[in-house]
């Protein structure tokens, strides 16, 4: 070990293991995490013959598929051995462990982050019984397509149509224009053979707004795109070039009526539309993913700040006092200013993420019981928290990169790749400015309620307390 780093460790005033346990949620959780990491890393999936940064775009994708399949095989084996559920998927593929193995991102991420959770949240019991087992076993690979080439966060503006034909009891999916093409979903290009597609539902000549449909894209044997399916990859991006983001268009593609996800709304055989108790229920998957993103940001900042802090203890620079050796750069206050806020941000985000995760679980349970009172509050909070944490994370990672000077610019530092991951999060699952404006809509409404004397939900209760809230 580098002697400077060793000295730093010797002067630490607290028990490091105690803090690790606290961050993990207890000694048992630390042990569990370490065991999981050891099991996965002992497989050697992360070891590359040629560093992936020197591969072509196509080779990067092929490597990502190879690694993702190895990883899924491993997870399946672990599930059989340990009889665990979804947690292993999230623990291994999500967060820093997954990112370590799949440096350029995984083409299967959306399968477990969005495809399976959407089936769980929006498919009827019968549909879940049919699809979830197949998805878990990887008999099918799915993704989730909502954003269109011409339409982003404003989902009511989506153009893809799903028109019910009562004669054949089928929906006809169609992309009326180029701007209606689905654009961006991970795994969509060459990996997934099924996709949950958000489309405007038409039945008996009436539009009923956007609804989710499960659509087969490729033949299960040959993997060839099915007739009427226009699918491909969107091209190279700033980072995450292994995620296989794709485009998707439909030319009058017919799917069975049962392929509309019908937990909340239904179309009966004769085309009668049975309305959901709340149109807001379809926002469930988006909120889940935004909460997951907040957790991911903690991992990325922790990674960046660990790299930068250790480097700052080893690196020596300049000679402020004559006849004295070059100081460690961590002794400069400007360097401490760059690093310490990153360390505290990890703690701040982790506790905020836990808080909103608990709120998400409570609200989901309340939704199942038909209570939607706290849904707007959770939606508003998850929107702004996703926006602020991703923006702050990008700033933190960039600050860490700058704190390592020219060495931080090297891909070998892993800081540029980490930046690629966090800055992508500023855009996906709702562009940050759009999300902040969604929160603002809730805040304006809440402020008006506060001035009217209404009792406000806990996270906005301060608006009633604070005098300035009534200034105007």
């Amino acid at each position, binding site marked *: *070990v580098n002697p400077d780093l060793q000295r*730093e*460790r010797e*002067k*630490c*005033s*607290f028990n*490091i293991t*105690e*803090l*690790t346990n606290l961050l993990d949620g207890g000694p048992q959780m630390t042990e569990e995490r370490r065991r999981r990491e050891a099991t996965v890393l002992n497989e050697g999936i992360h070891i590359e013959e*040629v*560093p992936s940064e*020197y591969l072509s775009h196509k080779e990067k994708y092929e490597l990502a598929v190879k690694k993702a399949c190895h990883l899924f095989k491993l997870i399946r084996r672990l599930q059989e051995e340990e009889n665990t559920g979804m947690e292993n998927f999230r623990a291994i593929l999500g967060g820093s462990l997954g*990112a370590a193995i799949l*440096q350029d991102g995984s083409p299967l991420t959306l399968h477990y982050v969005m495809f399976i959770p959407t089936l769980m949240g929006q498919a009827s019991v019968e549909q879940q019984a049919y699809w979830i087992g197949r998805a878990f076993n990887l008999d099918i690979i799915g993704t989730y397509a909502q954003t269109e080439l011409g339409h982003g966060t404003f989902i009511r503006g989506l153009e893809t149509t799903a028109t019910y034909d009562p004669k054949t009891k089928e929906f006809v999916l169609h992309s009326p224009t180029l701007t209606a093409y689905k654009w961006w979903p991970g795994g969509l290009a060459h990996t997934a053979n099924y996709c949950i597609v958000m489309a405007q539902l038409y039945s008996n000549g009436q539009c009923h707004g956007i609804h989710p449909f499960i659509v087969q894209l490729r033949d299960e044997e040959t993997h060839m795109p099915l007739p009427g399916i226009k699918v491909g990859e969107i091209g190279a991006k700033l980072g995450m070039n292994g995620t296989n983001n794709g485009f998707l268009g439909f030319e009058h593609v017919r799917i069975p009526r049962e392929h509309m996800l019908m937990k909340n709304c239904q179309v009966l055989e004769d085309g009668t539309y049975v309305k959901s108790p709340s149109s807001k229920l379809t926002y469930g998957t988006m909120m889940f993913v935004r909460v997951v993103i907040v957790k991911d940001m903690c991992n990325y900042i*922790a*990674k960046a700040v*660990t*790299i*930068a802090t*250790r*480097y700052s*203890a080893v690196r020596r620079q300049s000679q402020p006092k004559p006849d004295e050796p070059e100081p460690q750069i961590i*002794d400069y*206050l400007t360097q401490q*200013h760059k690093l*310490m*806020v990153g*360390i505290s941000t990890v*703690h*701040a985000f982790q*506790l*905020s993420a*836990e*808080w909103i995760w608990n709120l998400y679980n409570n609200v989901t349970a309340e939704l199942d019981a038909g209570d939607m009172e706290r849904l707007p509050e959770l939606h508003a*909070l998850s929107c*702004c*928290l996703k*926006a*602020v944490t991703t923006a702050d994370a990008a700033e933190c990672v960039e600050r860490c990169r700058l704190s390592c000077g020219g*060495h*931080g610019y*090297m891909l*070998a*530092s892993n800081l540029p790749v980490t930046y690629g991951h966090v800055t992508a999060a500023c855009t996906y699952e709702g562009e940050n400015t759009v999300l902040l*404006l969604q929160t*603002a809509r809730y*805040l*304006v409404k809440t402020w008006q309620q506060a001035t009217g004397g209404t009792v406000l939900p806990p996270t*906005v209760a*301060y*608006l009633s*307390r*604070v*005098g*300035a*809230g009534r*200034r*105007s």
Partner: protein
Amino acid sequence: PPWDNTIEGIIRGFEVVAAGKIALCVANIERRQKSGMSYEDAWNMTSVQLTQASEAHCRVFILTSYFEETERQVKTTSPELREVLLQLVDLYVVYWALQRVGDLLRFTSISERDIATLQNWYEELLTKLRPNAVGLVDAFDLRDEILHSALGAYDGRVYERLMEEALKSPLNAEPVNQSFHKYLKPFMQGKL
């Protein structure tokens, strides 16, 4: 209310900022509507302020949950760890107060002297946390395979690892690259 230069006081200050910004947004939307604008246009004209109000609201949430949850956590930790965790909360809250000093000046009764005190407090916190910096990141317990970084490995062999990585460049596989014979040499000879 008078400014209170404590962590709780700063968080209350952020609440005042967020509420003040939301109030101003509502007032501006209403003013624009009164001048004949549609609600949608008034909203659009106010949207820069609206995003800032949202961000301020989010800061209140993060600061509050961080402070309150840490206060709860440290009840069961050792005194040594407690001290460091509270220093981190202080650092985070004071850092954001200094980052948003303009907002605090605009919406609260904070004075220049209070700001000077905050700046001094921040600098002292950096110095206090300095000896524990490496311990704090070690506690994230990220294995080298996960960090995947020549600069951040646990053993600190930064320069050796950088050189090892440099040698993996495909350009280092041969002493002379073919482009020399193909392009550079004819060009150089032509010039000569």
